[in-house]
């Protein structure tokens, strides 16, 4: 099971200029706030897709749920 730190590290490694704040109570349901310069000019849907794509195939598996909030930094 991924830890909050692993989720944070993977988001920050995959998205240029990203800073993620990740919380989890059970290592299965995660809540993340992600700020990234890469979000400039993107719609919210496009911003969320960038983050969800990091966990392609794992959402619904190891990561049951990822509540997401994105902000342009």
């Amino acid at each position, binding site marked *: 099971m991924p830890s909050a730190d692993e989720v944070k590290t993977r988001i920050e490694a995959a998205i240029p200029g990203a800073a993620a704040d990740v919380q989890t109570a059970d290592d299965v349901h995660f809540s993340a706030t992600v700020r990234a310069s890469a979000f400039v000019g993107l719609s919210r849907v496009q911003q969320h897709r960038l983050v969800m794509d990091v966990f392609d195939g794992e959402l*619904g598996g190891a990561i049951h749920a990822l509540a997401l909030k994105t902000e342009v930094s």
Partner: protein
Amino acid sequence: MSDTAIRDAISQAIAENDIILFMKGTPDHPACGFSARTVAMLQALETPFTAVDILPDPRIRQELSAISKWPTIPQLFHKGELVGGCDIVTEMYESGELADTLGVEAPAAAPESAGPVPAAPLGIENRLG
């Protein structure tokens, strides 16, 4: 019904309905807290919307996500465009942006912002399953 026919039917439903929500369960009997919460926000805006239950056939979910490039449920569309899932809809509801986007008036009780999300049963659960 073939996968292609299902995909075509979904595309047509998105094109033909100004506001359409793909959810688990129905507005009266939502089967997931995130779907329930999204329904509650739309109902708070008093806007009519079309709801599609994705649960009866797993291929609905599969084809919908292939069309929308969005892995989770619920999914709200406005005039053919994906507005977002529960997180985005919640953020937009709280800022008043959802009412603007959908072209409806924000609830009169809260003129500056739509206020807190209306209560709906929401537990930690798998919104993807």
